[in-house]
């Protein structure tokens, strides 16, 4: 016998965007976002991640947290592909203000303008902010 919640069929796929605007380690937002993304991956929705403002620092290559006694969670971004999360958008203006380029990032991303990202946000069904 199927349980009631199993009889609903495939259901509606919604567009979910996770908006990341915080640097890693200084606050818990970046790690919490990653945790929620990994949990939500089980629900087979149309998921994308946006990195803007200090959120672009989450993807900086070469993070080494041995000296501060915290877990380096940056390798997890490279594992997202395994959860079918492949849409990672990074705002070009945010990179430029910080003296960063796409080559500084630890995972393949799509760099886009603030204008294009704003449009992308507008097209979502659900936006979760961190």
């Amino acid at each position, binding site marked *: 016998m199927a349980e009631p919640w199993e009889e609903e069929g495939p259901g509606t796929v919604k567009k979910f965007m996770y908006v990341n605007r915080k640097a890693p380690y200084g606050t818990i937002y970046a790690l919490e976002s990653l945790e929620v993304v990994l949990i939500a991956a089980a629900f087979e929705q149309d998921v994308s991640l946006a990195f803007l403002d*200090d959120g672009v620092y989450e993807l*900086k290559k070469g993070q080494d947290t041995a000296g501060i006694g915290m877990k380096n969670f940056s390798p997890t971004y490279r594992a997202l592909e395994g959860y079918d999360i492949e849409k990672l958008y990074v705002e070009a203006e945010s990179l430029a203000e910080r*003296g960063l380029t796409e080559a500084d990032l630890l995972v393949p991303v799509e760099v886009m303008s603030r204008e294009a990202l704003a449009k992308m946000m507008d097209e979502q069904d659900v936006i979760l902010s961190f």
Partner: protein
Amino acid sequence: MSMLHTVNKSPFERNALDSCIKHALPGSAILLIEDGVYAAIKGTAHEGMVRDSMANHSLYVLGPDLLARGMSPEQVIDGISVVDYGGFVDLAVNHDKVQSWL
């Protein structure tokens, strides 16, 4: 002896460093820690503000916080000294007070 100021917020997210620089008296030291270390990196939109402050203040940045964030000492603005935790202690000891800008 003078004041040691510590700043632990990103200059892109808060005005802690800006306010610190505006209030810190000439001759005092400024130590960038935690997310404050992003201000020490060359090529950012805040480099000018940081460089200008170096005319009146000695600037330091905490190495372990740089490395955690994927930044190397080579990317630090010339004239800012990279210190370890022992250096942080020395700075605290060698100044008569510490003021934190959060």
